[in-house]
């Protein structure tokens, strides 16, 4: 299977992936003289297999090229940064006016998630990546983090249950001297 030759220039190819001669572009033949099967249909308008263009490098160039629009603008980044500072300011202000812990926790988590989304979308420019990458990374993370929440019922159950002995000994030791 692996040995195939070019009928025109007699070059030998050991690679299964090569179906055309890389020098003159003619279709390769198997040792028994039969035509090598061409697995992928060639686009009619530009037949890259007939040229020596390193296709993989072209694709990588496209990857790097795709980053041109990544940058967004410095103005965008500065405005994201200002937003992050403003949201941090709101958080600190909430701390300053002392809300109760549950309300505080809810609001802080909400703001933190917004901040995280801003960082991921613009600074890590996930927004400019392909949707397939976003859908591969984000749902996995969200589901796994939600799974961690299974521990909370147990932590509420063990409230008033866990450190009572410890706390009484602690107060004793502090009263001793």
């Amino acid at each position: 299977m692996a040995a195939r030759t070019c009928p025109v220039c007699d070059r030998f190819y050991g690679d299964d992936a090569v179906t055309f001669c890389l020098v003159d572009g003619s279709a390769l033949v198997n040792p028994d003289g039969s035509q090598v099967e061409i697995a992928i249909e060639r686009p009619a308008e530009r037949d890259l297999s007939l040229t020596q263009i390193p296709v993989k490098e072209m694709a990588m160039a496209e990857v790097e090229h795709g980053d041109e629009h990544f940058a967004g603008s410095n103005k965008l980044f500065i405005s994201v940064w200002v937003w992050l500072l403003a949201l941090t300011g709101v958080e600190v202000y909430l701390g300053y006016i002392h809300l109760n812990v549950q309300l505080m926790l809810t609001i802080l988590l909400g703001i933190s998630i917004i901040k995280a989304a801003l960082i991921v979308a613009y600074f890590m420019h996930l927004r400019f990546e392909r949707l397939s990458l976003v859908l591969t990374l984000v749902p996995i993370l969200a589901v796994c983090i939600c799974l961690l929440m299974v521990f909370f019922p147990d932590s509420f159950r063990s409230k008033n249950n866990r450190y009572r002995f410890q706390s009484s000994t602690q107060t004793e030791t502090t009263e001793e001297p």
Partner: protein
Amino acid sequence: MSTEAASADQLIANEWSGGTLPYRVGHRKLGMWLFIVSDSLTFSALLVGYAYVRASSDNWPTPFPFSPSIIFSTVMTLCLLSSSLTMVMGVSASARGDKKATRKWILLTILFGLTFIVLHLIEWRHLINEGLSPFSLPKEWVKEWPGASPLFGATFFGITGLHMFHVATGAIYLAVVAARVNKLKHEDVEISGLYWHFVDLVWMFVFPMIYLLSIKA
């Protein structure tokens, strides 16, 4: 079978039709993204662990007075946020191919990162001098918050310590990138940026959860 004969269009095929580069990112960048996802889970687990201990304790110390502790840690937050901005400037300079500016911005980023570490260590030293250790509270705290869990220190030093370790590693990573910036491709600079922003992102959760929820009444 014969991918080599395929056109570039097929190598970076449509969104869900596969191809050699289905995500249109290089393998290193994909690797960094996967590392970031797994590292986020490490930090999530630590924060959930902290929430677990806090919710199951009879009492929990809230030892940080607004001034100076919270103001101090807000300044630390500003340092990290600004370092993210300088990093993103570095990456966009690198996208333009301006290596000199890239190096300058990255060095500024490292400087902000080191400032963060120094401020954090000052704060740690202050708390340690007060008598806080991973498994015991200072005596005054025990009086002030009777029945408080002694694990306060474990959660505090554990989470902020791991985060500080990430900042320190990030600073070393960025120093290597800055030193070799002429040899590196744009995508490599971008990947180091991803890591640095991730460190910043983690702090966006650590700061409210650890500090702002423990402000002295």
